[in-house]
């Protein structure tokens, strides 16, 4: 009788593993962070676009010289938006990608990059802003 009961007993079934739930939360959180990063990075990107247009209409100036002029006028603002914030958001997004990579246990492939493409884009934009500022 007892043996019959044991045979009938099955392993507990979970529709979703705890690990999958955790990964889903991490993915959602990473997307939220990348959206906030995008909003904050849109400010320096907008300034760069505006200065680029200004330098195109003014043959004596260039984007770099316009950025230097802005830095001289508004030092704290420019350091904050062109250096500190991009570095912070770059680190946040790198950590998000690393967390997803560890939890998903998958090698870095096109499928993985497809999942985190928005975070990668934010990192690339951050690097672009920092490069334009330090040049």
């Amino acid at each position, binding site marked *: 009788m007892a043996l019959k009961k044991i045979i009938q007993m099955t392993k507990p079934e979970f529709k979703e593993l705890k690990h999958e739930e955790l990964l889903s939360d991490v993915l959602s959180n990473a997307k939220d962070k990348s959206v906030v990063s995008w909003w904050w990075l849109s400010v320096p990107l907008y300034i760069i676009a*505006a200065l680029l247009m200004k330098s195109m209409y003014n043959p004596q100036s260039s984007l770099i010289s316009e950025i230097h002029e802005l830095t001289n006028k508004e030092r704290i603002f420019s350091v904050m938006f062109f250096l500190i914030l991009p570095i912070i958001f770059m680190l946040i997004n790198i950590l998000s990608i690393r967390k997803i990579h560890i939890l998903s246990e998958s090698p870095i492939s096109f499928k993985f990059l497809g999942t985190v493409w928005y975070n990668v884009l934010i990192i690339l934009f951050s690097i672009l802003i920092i490069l334009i500022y330090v040049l």
Partner: protein
Amino acid sequence: MNFPWFKRIGIFFIPATVIGWILFAGEIVFAVYIFRDVDSKSHSVSDSLINFVFYLLISGAVYSLVAWLTSRRYKSV
């Protein structure tokens, strides 16, 4: 601690509660005030828009940060 004030749809945080809607309305009122202020000092339409978009992006960034900090964490059942 989860605050269910906003939910994210795409790159926008949409209010989900009354407090969220109050914050969103505050954002709209601020944008209208800024536009009127910028428009009164500018010399052309492009001058108004260029300066207004700059302030709009900064206020949008602050709004998104507040919304993210107070947004709902959805858990799969």
